[in-house]
């Protein structure tokens, strides 16, 4: 493969510094997908305002500093932004070659979670505590690894021109590659992440052009697996309640039912324009649990109203819409698959996260991309943005 050499495609000499090239006229900057970039920045900024509003009174977690979470959210966004630049710098094709290393690191990290180093938050043993108030959720990075790994395997023969579609053997191998980390995450158990990963696999398989049998087979296996999990009592009771209570809060009025109910009240009471940032009684009164992370959308619903919450949906729509264009326009299958994986990831995670606050999806511990507070998640989505940009920047110009 051509690797990093393609960076010079715009005609600038390799002697130029990276930064200069990035912002030079008629070059990389022009090829960047600005709508995605601006939307992602906007979402992160809205997110920081919402996180601030949700945490400024929570003295029991903000260590007495109302700006504690705001500052960290902005820091995370900054780090994420840097990671995005780094990703563009390296390019998705370079990363393709680094897949084995990345894969190894991620599997190592999630295995580490299972050791005593791991920490449990909300019933999911999914964190590694780093100290100093920082912690890592490796399953977020596994999502990227799976996308890159599967895309590498599935696209290898096709991009080489050997085949029109990935054959069964390749598909099987790629599924095996994804299965290992998924099984480990399932052990944590971090069901929300597992769900996202399964959807990512679905998106990847669809975009790879793999036989329909695989797509439907995966859907069928997923359904059967869900039934098996339910029937064999693999899940803890609290997890079953979480699934059932979103539709009927009375099933678990003190637990998940309470969450969904309060979330719905918060959003519903927002009306058209909301109560104004910092003036939501549900938010100020801390009636909604996990409001800076999983339930951050309720702050938008209550304090910014239909207009503000709708804007978040719109911005997410812009990101996804542009991502779809990138997936369709790039000429190499590898880029298409990576983009499709990211689309499946963002779309499902957003739908699940917002859907649970609106009471149409079961409650699962998933952050809202860009908006929710959380370092690992923030880093992962910005890396994904970097990948999308890289695919767009590096696609062969169809002049």
């Amino acid at each position, binding site marked *: 493969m051509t690797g990093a050499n393609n960076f010079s495609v715009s005609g600038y000499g390799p002697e130029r510094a990276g930064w200069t090239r990035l912002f030079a006229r008629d070059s990389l900057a022009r090829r960047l997908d600005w709508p995605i970039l601006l939307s992602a920045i906007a979402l992160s900024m809205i997110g920081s305002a919402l996180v601030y509003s949700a945490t400024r009174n929570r003295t029991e977690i903000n260590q007495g500093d109302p700006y504690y979470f705001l500052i960290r959210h902005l820091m995370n966004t900054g780090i994420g932004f840097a990671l995005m630049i780094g990703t563009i710098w390296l390019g998705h094709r370079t990363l393709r070659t680094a897949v084995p290393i990345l894969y190894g690191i991620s599997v190592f990290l999630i295995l580490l979670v299972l050791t005593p180093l791991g920490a449990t938050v909300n019933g999911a043993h999914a964190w590694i505590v780093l100290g100093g108030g920082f912690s890592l959720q490796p399953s977020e990075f596994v999502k990227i690894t799976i996308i890159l790994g599967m895309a590498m395997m599935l696209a290898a023969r096709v991009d080489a021109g050997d085949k029109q579609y990935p054959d069964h053997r390749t598909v099987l191998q790629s599924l095996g590659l994804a299965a290992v980390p998924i099984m480990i995450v399932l052990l944590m158990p971090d069901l929300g992440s597992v769900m996202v990963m399964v959807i990512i696999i679905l998106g990847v398989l669809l975009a790879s052009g793999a036989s329909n049998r695989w797509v439907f087979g995966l859907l069928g296996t997923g359904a059967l697996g869900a039934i098996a999990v339910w029937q064999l009592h693999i899940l803890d009771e609290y997890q079953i309640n979480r699934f059932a209570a979103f539709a009927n809060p009375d099933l678990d009025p003190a637990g998940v039912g309470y969450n969904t109910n309060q979330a719905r009240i918060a959003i519903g009471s927002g009306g058209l324009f909301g109560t104004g940032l910092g003036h939501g009684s549900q938010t100020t009164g801390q009636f909604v649990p996990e409001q800076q992370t999983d339930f951050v959308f309720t702050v938008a619903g209550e304090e910014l109203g239909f207009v503000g919450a709708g804007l978040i949906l719109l911005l997410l729509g812009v990101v996804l819409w542009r991502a779809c264009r990138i997936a369709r326009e790039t000429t190499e299958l590898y880029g*298409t698959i990576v983009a499709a994986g990211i689309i499946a990831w963002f779309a499902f995670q957003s*739908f699940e996260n917002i859907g649970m606050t609106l009471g149409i999806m079961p409650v699962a511990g998933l952050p809202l991309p860009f908006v929710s507070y959380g370092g690992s998640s923030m880093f992962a989505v910005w890396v994904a943005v970097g990948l999308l940009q890289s695919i767009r920047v590096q696609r062969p110009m169809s002049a």
Partner: protein
Amino acid sequence: MTNIPETGRTPRVQIRLVVIQILVLSLLGTLGGRLWYLQIRNGDEYAKEASGNHVQQVVQPAVRGSILDARGVPIADNETRLVVSASRTDLLKMKDDGKAVLTKLAGVLGMKPQDVMEKVRLCDAKTPQPCWNGSPYQPIPITDEATTQQALQIRERSEDFPGITAEPEAVRRYAGPGKSNTAQVLGYLSPVTDDEITKAKDSESPYLRSDQVGRNGLEREYDKELRGKAGVTRYEVDNLGRVIGKAKADAAEPGSNLVTSLDSRVQRVAEYELNEAMKKARQQYDKITSEYYKADSGAVVVMEAKTGRIVAMASAPTYDPNVWVGGISAKDYKALTGKNSDYPLLNRAIQGQAAPGSTFKVVSTAAAVEAGYEWDGGYPCTSSYSVGGQVFKNFEGESFGPISLGRALEVSCDTVFYGLADREWKKDGGINPKKGEPKDYFFKAAHQFGLGKETGVDLPNEVTGRVPDRQWKENYWKANKDAWCKTGKKNGSYVEKIAYENCLEGNKMREGDEINYSIGQGDTLVTPIQEAVIYGAVANGGTMYTPTIGKAVVSPDGKSVKEIKPKVKGKLPVSKSTIKGMDEAFAGVVTRGTAAWKFGGWPQNEIPLHAKTGTAEVYGKQTTSWLATYSKDYTVIMTIAQAGTGSGASGEAVRNIYSALYGVAADGSIDKSKALLPTPQKGLPKIQKDGSIDAPAISKDPVKDLRAGETDDSGKTDQQLPAGTTPSPSGTNRDTRRRTARPKKRRRMRILT
């Protein structure tokens, strides 16, 4: 890459990408739709839920206004008790939900820790009493009987007792000044019910869950004025109930004070004398029933004749109104209202009704004058009056020859009224009156005197009494004829015969009915308060006043005074000269008539008294005694059920009440310094800005003070009867006479009364 066509991909992948795109957009669309549904369509609903979520009310109860007597002596007020309360929200913030604090508190209060914790827990379907029924944000009272010592311990070590308060709080108290009781007039309070809260929700004075509501008597009649307005502070709270802001605060407004026309001292005397009279009656032997008089209930009303203001009102049997304070126990409640109780909650002065007996002749006399009979005409007072083979005898077969209406009233000559009523009955067309309106002077007069409907006294649940006129007979017959006609037999048993008669003509005014009615026997029912209005009107020259107890509603700071003025209810349908005639006749009753044997030695020249006695028959029971009296300023009505004649049962008692009012000693001398109320109380007691009241001191027991200079008073009074006064009626003669003379009439009456 070179092998890849320019389009970059196969159609399969292209199509699938489009599918993904559509899927993604539809997911976003779904979210948008749902968002619109929640925020725009159902937004108001959720906004309401949200506000209910985070606002909690804390109520500071308003201090209930006092009920004062005419001189400002409190009859119902509030006493301060030390109430120890626990705040649940504070307790729940502790690691062990406050268990340690409550255990320590139990130690200080000398209670079991278990009991304290049970008082603080919230009531629900599974939790039995004791538990807290009110708002969890309201401090929960643990005891209202803490000692100062205990309260101090809790307050001084407040850091040891977080969430626990020991505050003085106002609790209702019925003071009973001077041993007066006034129970039925005051009424009582009990906690508000859910129904009342819902009903009054949108009214001007909504209830709070912690409210006590007046249930009877003055407490109920003036509840709105006395209650005041509780203070409500609305706090914004977070999900743990921690207060995050004060939303709205309304300070509590204490209730107004009610100044009444009652005089605690006279009230005490009235209660004491009523009780004494009943006790004495029980020692009297009733020859008709061959047992001692039961004297099971009675009432006395002392009213200002010129205003209708009630000075005293007593009802027996009675009870201690303080049993209601702090919640009545099931046992006490049963004793007051159960089947085996003597219903002491009834205020028999306004809720007890009985045939008026001869006290009714004031109405009949007025009716006769109205019908055109001359006052001074000679009406034969024969020893008996015969109608269609029936003989209606006069009192002990006495005869006075032809006498005037006034004299007939004075000597209570039954046959004069029989004759007049019978003539009117015949004039009206007899048993089948003509199509035209019968004149019915005797019944019309009763209505004009205010009988058959409430007097409008400012007490709840007054009863109407009854005038057994044609209309009533018709209604009564309609309601009962089916039963009568079913059981009635012409030649059957006693009861069956009456039923047969009633079935045939129970709807008609029969000759005997009207004759009986003219002397206050039969189906007529009056209440003591109705009699008070009538005799008060005779006393003041003909004006009937609506009786009132409330005299003024005074704001807690004494600034705003809302006077309750005497209300004229109507005029007696009699001329001035007739009233003068009646007045003389009633004075004669005291000096030489049926009451004279109890009023010997009374200083009639200084304090002229007027009276009319009455003895009413009740089927299956001993006779009801009535004594209606008045002086220049007061009307005193006493009635005792199953106690014989009016003068015999109540004569001394009523005399003693007048003695107390005017300061008359047993020998008839007047000592003005001893007079409790020689003229009605004018003006209102002064209430200071700070709420304190200028009230005169009241002795421990006014009755004892009055008796201080006397020894063995009652016995003496009897023996001092001057010779030559009317011999004492035995209290049984009336019944004896009727039972023998008119068996047929009696029977019919028995069923109806």
